[in-house]
C-alpha cells in the first residue's frame, strides 16, 4: 500500500484502485482534540480539490478536501461516536472515507512520505 500526501495535510493510502483518505498526524496534532467529523456520502462523486468533509476541534472547524477524484465507496462510521480516533490513530482507525480512483495519474501530483516530511519540517 502506497501513501501519498497533500499540502493541505490529507493522506491518500492506495490499495489497487481504491484509496483511503484521512488527515495526517501533523494535522491532527495541529488541530487538537477532534470532537466532530462530517464525512461525504457514499456514492458522492468528487473531483480532486473538492471539499469532502469537515473536522472540528474544541476550538475550530476546518474543511477537509479530497486530494484525488472518484466515487466515495465507504465512510468511517466509527467517527460519529468516537471522533477522537482521528487523534489517536489518524492513519489507521481514524480514516475518513474510501474512494474509487477515477484518475490514478493524479497521485503523481501528491507528495510521497519523504516529500511530505520535508514539507512539514519547513512549516
Amino acid at each position, binding site marked *: 500500500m502506497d501513501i501519498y500526501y497533500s499540502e*493541505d*495535510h*490529507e493522506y491518500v493510502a492506495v490499495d489497487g484502485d481504491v484509496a483511503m483518505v484521512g*488527515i495526517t498526524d501533523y*494535522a491532527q496534532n*495541529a*488541530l*487538537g*482534540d477532534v*470532537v*466532530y467529523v*462530517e464525512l461525504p456520502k457514499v456514492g458522492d462523486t468528487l473531483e480532486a480539490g473538492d471539499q469532502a468533509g*469537515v*473536522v*472540528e*476541534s*474544541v*476550538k475550530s*472547524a*476546518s*474543511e*477537509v*478536501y479530497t486530494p484525488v477524484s472518484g466515487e466515495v465507496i465507504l465512510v468511517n462510521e466509527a467517527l*460519529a461516536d468516537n*471522533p477522537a480516533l482521528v487523534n489517536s490513530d489518524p492513519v489507521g482507525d481514524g480514516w475518513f472515507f474510501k474512494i474509487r480512483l477515477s484518475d490514478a495519474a493524479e497521485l503523481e501530483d501528491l507528495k510521497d512520505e519523504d516529500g511530505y516530511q520535508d514539507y512539514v519540517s519547513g*512549516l
Partner: protein
Amino acid sequence: MEPAIKMTQDLFKTPLWDVHQSFGAKMAPFAGYDMPLQYEGLGVMQEHLHTRENAGLFDVSHMGQVLLTGDDPATALETLVPSDIKGLAAGKMRYTVLLNDKGGIVDDLMVTRVDDNALYLVVNAGCKDKDFALLKTLSGVKMEMLDDRALIALQGPKAEAVLAGVLGADAASGVFMTMQKVDSDFGALFVSRSGYTGEDGFEISVPAGAAERFAQKLLAHPDVKPIGLGARDSLRLEAGLCLYGYDLDEDTTPIEANLKWAIQKRRRAEGGFKGADIILPQIENGVARMRIGIKPEGRAPVREGTELFSKEGKKIGIVTSGGFGPTVGGPVAMGYVETECAKDGTPIDAMVRGTKRPCVVVRLPFVTQQYKKG
C-alpha cells in the same frame, strides 16, 4: 485542511511570557498580546477538565487594571455603569458594564471598592483604549493604569488549598466577589475571590517584577497546570459568561444581554447612568431580542455566526459564542433570538453548513457554578 493561526508582528508580551515558553505554550495573538492558546502535554480538552477537577493557572495580565481615586469615585463611575457602586462596602466587588448613550455596552468589567476614595477596575484587553477615554471624562476622579502589574487567575476546586499553601490561609479565606490586599514575599497583592470559569478561585494582581516567581511557585504544586485561552473560552462558555466583542457589543443593551441582574434596585429606581432613558423602559416593557443558551442536539458544534431559525422556518437570531463543552461532553452555544423564542425549552434550528441542526433554548449556565458564597 486550513493550517493553524499564523503569528503576527508587534505583539505585547505579558510579564509571564517566559513562563508560557517554559511550559511549551502554543502562542497566538489576542487583543494585541502574544498569548498562550494551549500548552504542550494536555491540549484544550484536558486543560479544561483539569481546571474543573483540580486547579488551572491563567495569565490574564493582558487585561487592563485601573485605579480610580478621588473624593467619591463611586458616585462618578455610576454615571457610566448601571450597577450599584456606591453601595459596595470596602473589599466587595461587582460585575458591571460601561454604557454608551444608546444604552449599548462599551465593555464589561469588574469593579472593586478598595476604600471610600478608591475603586479598582479590571477591563478587557481589547477595550482598554476606549474604556480609558471614557473613564477620563469623569470629573473629580484620577485614573491610574496599573500596567506595572500582572494578573493571574487560579481557578478550580483545588485553588483555595493551593493559594493557602503559598500565601497562607488568611489570604485564601475570602468569599466570592470580595478582595483583600495581601503583603507577601511577592510584594503587595490584590487577591480577589473571583474568576471567569464558573469555578471557585482567585484573581491575583501581582507586581510585574514578582509575577514570574509567583506563577512558578503556584505551578510547582502538583494539582496546578497552566491553562491557555482555548480552555478559558470553553470554560466561560459552559459557565454562561459573556465574551465581549462576541456576546456583548455597543449595539446591545444589558437587558438584551440578559444582564438585568447587574442593575440593582436603587439604580433601576433612580437611573442617572448613560443610556438609562433606553434601558429603564426596556426593564418595564421588555426587549425584542434576548441572549439565551443553546444546546444543539447531536454532536456537531454550532459556532459563532451561525443563523438560528424557528421551527416555522423564520430567521430569529444568531449564535454569538459556540463550540464544544468538554465538561458537558457535547456542543454548547449562546446567542440572541427574538424574545418570543427565548423561553427555556423552545425548540429551534441552527443552520450549519446548509443543514438545519435541531437545538433547544436552555437556561444558562450549562455547568453549575461552584462559587464560594459567604
